[in-house]
């Protein structure tokens, strides 16, 4: 059991505290309920660019990193299609430094034009380093707009193109902050050897005077499943052909989500999974293959991706995958196979909760999904999945009209 103390300030800030007396380190995680899905189609990549600017100085403190380094702390952040998440770890003696820094940048940023100019360049280099100058790096830039037609999941967090980053203005930045960065849109989660009442008083001291604002209402165009089969082939200077197949699947809090997650594990997690064993080990049609779910808060994707053996053509590779999927649609998982994927889930989950940073980060995300208590009940949801659920969902998900298929054709093969 992971116990959380919960508080809410009058300005709407939600606070979670988990006491762990075994560690000298405290983790302070701040989740903002804003991600790439909250961008407009003409200004994509903005939530992520903004995350960079959050380190460029706040209203009273010229630099975020320097005082934290002096406190012996580390920090970082990430942006996804759903959330923007900032985290700090430091020796517990200096916890107040983190609260001082995080609260000031929730209050207001310095909005320096220099910071925007530099971070714009840094993000463009990040765009090149991670997406353009890597073999297969642009796959998700291509696959998203195939799998999503109306929902903003159709662009990647880095943005649809470098041009959108180049065009961002300081006014855009200010408007984004005003709309999304406020106490009611944030969850502050703290884990470490702290006294819950004392830490709550400290949080109150630093956060209570941040003005309340209305939590922005999200009104996203719903994505319809069954959008029709789509196939795209791209010629790229890469060593091997690669196949990516993405099917629409239920959203994160749908009752069927755990069964879909287990379905993907049954197909692709580990060397004894169905796809790996059949297509890499036995038939040697692929040199690697994997299956996973994106886990997004709105309509998700179940993805199978693999690198083709040089002797295999796309049609053969695709047919072989389809045969495995036909099999999982026709026959329910055996009790042993079902137990295996449940054991894998439980184990992965236990390992994902090690350390105060993971506990604080997961708690904030679970709270966003509905309740931090999910940390204690999630495994039971997975344990309750039956073979029939997996069977039913395989039939529901693996329909051609649900499928987006991207082929990366190597110029060398």
């Amino acid at each position, binding site marked *: 059991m992971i116990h959380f103390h919960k508080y809410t300030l009058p300005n709407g800030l939600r606070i979670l505290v988990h006491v*762990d007396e075994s*560690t*000298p*380190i405290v983790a302070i995680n701040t989740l903002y309920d804003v991600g790439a899905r909250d961008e407009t189609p003409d200004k994509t990549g903005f939530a992520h660019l903004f995350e960079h600017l959050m380190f460029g100085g706040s*209203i*009273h*403190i010229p630099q975020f*990193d*320097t005082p934290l*380094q*002096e*406190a*012996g*702390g*580390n920090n970082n952040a990430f942006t996804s299609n759903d959330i923007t998440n900032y985290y700090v*770890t*430091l*020796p517990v*003696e*200096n916890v107040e*430094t983190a609260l*001082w820094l995080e609260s*000031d940048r929730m*209050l207001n940023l310095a909005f320096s034009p220099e910071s925007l100019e*530099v971070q*714009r*360049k*840094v993000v463009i*280099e*990040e765009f*090149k*380093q991670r997406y353009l*100058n*890597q*073999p*297969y790096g642009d796959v998700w830039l291509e696959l998203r707009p195939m799998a999503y037609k109306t929902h903003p999941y159709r662009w990647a967090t880095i943005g649809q193109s470098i041009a959108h980053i180049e065009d961002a203005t300081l006014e855009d930045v200010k408007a984004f902050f005003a709309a999304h960065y406020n106490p009611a849109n944030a969850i502050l989660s703290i884990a470490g050897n702290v006294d819950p009442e004392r830490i709550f008083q400290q949080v109150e*001291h630093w956060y209570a*005077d941040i003005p309340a604002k209305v939590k922005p209402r999200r009104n996203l165009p719903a994505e319809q499943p069954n959008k029709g089969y789509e196939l795209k082939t791209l010629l790229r*200077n*890469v*060593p*091997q052909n690669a196949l990516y197949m993405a099917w629409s699947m239920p959203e994160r809090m749908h009752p069927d989500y755990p069964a879909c997650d287990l379905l993907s594990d049954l197909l692709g997690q*580990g*060397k*004894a999974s169905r796809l790996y*064993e059949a297509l*890499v*080990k036995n038939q040697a049609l692929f*040199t*690697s293959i994997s299956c996973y779910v994106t886990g997004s808060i709105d309509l998700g994707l179940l993805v199978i991706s693999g*690198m083709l053996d040089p002797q295999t053509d796309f049609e053969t590779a695709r047919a072989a995958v389809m045969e495995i999927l036909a099999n999982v649609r026709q026959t329910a998982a055996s009790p042993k196979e079902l137990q*295996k994927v449940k054991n*894998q889930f439980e*184990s*992965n989950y*236990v*390992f994902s*909760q*090690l350390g*105060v940073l993971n506990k604080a980060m997961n708690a904030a995300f679970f709270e966003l999904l509905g309740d931090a208590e999910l940390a204690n009940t999630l495994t039971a949801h997975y344990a309750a999945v039956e073979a029939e659920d997996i069977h039913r969902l395989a039939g529901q998900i693996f329909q051609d009209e649900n499928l987006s298929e991207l082929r990366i054709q190597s110029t060398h093969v």
Partner: protein
Amino acid sequence: MPNRTIAPLLAFPKAIPELPILPETILENLSCYTLEGGSEDVLKIDVVFKAGTLYDSYPLLANTTLGNIKEGTANFTGREIAETVDFFGSQIQTDISYDRAEITLVTQGKHLVSLLDVFTDVLLLPVFPEKEFAQYVKRSKSQLSVNLEKVEFNCRLLLSELMFSGHPYREQVSVSAYDALTTDMLRAFHSNHFSLNDAYVLISGRGTATAKDALAAALSAKWKAQASSLRDTSAANWQYSPSEKRSRKADALQSAIRMGAPALSRNHPDYPLLYLANMALGGYFGSRLMQNIREDKGYTYGIGSSINVLEDAAYLLISTQVGAEVTEATLHEIRFELQRMQTAAIDAAELQRIKRYILGNLVESFDGPFATADRLKLMINHRLDGGYFSRFAQRIPHITAEEITAVSAEFFNEKRFSLAVVGEW
């Protein structure tokens, strides 16, 4: 209303505890260390062998031996091994460095007894079946071909060539090198380098005492003493001399840059000085390289420097990927920062910040049994005593600006560095 213009008072983090290094002996002469702790029922068993890439008699031999170790044993097929490990949601991980290779079992404690038979078979009785080996080679060639498209991967190989030609630490990989390997070579390498004669065991997490006894019992049922000999890795003919090489990759959007120079090992009395100087140069987000080249110029997503301490050598490494058009400008700025470290005294505020940052991070690196296990491994591999990190932590606050300038003048001299660039410039 809080006064937001005044920073909260800071405390220096707590002292670093001494780590007693007292192994117990299992089997006849196998050292087994345990680190008990943690809030969850999880366990990690690391078995650490002298089987790093240093011992390669052919390129990729150590890697390939380790990569095939789970593909079949005297009592289990590769498929049975994968099924058992998957069924219990556990993992047998492998890891290799220049000096050592590790085989690790990671599991929830409640499943340990169900896994020990398979795990000890993987440790002691792999058979390296032909079919799996052929598939491994095919998969590895594919993976390597992808890596060889990346500027940073090629740059790593290029710097290794410049710095370590003629030294067993030289990293040599090529797709064709796989064709020279046979399963007999793997078996020979295994019997000499994956021998328990030169290995140790480290168990961390919860229930380590019970796990140690269970592991010892499972091992002793299969183990028999066998002679083994490590490959001679002396580098008598190797001498470092700095050099520069560039390799053009058509249409690269970014260039990868790496600079390397000899450094001090952890045992050297001046190591804490160089450690601090490197931190200032490029060791953390507030470092000079990061602030100048990323945060001021925006040339890169990231740049850093590190001291890479191997068991028989140590070198400084500066590495980054930058927009192709700012390759030369970046090199200019790196040289400028190297020069500045040698000539201008580090100011008191920066020095104080780095000292506190180092100590805070040191506390974090001992947080929990798995992190502490990593520290302990480092101490064992580098033959450091139990008080090493606490002495290191005590030394840091007393280091002066003059000492930093002096150690920089010796180690950050640009003439000592080799330079590798891959991309466009």
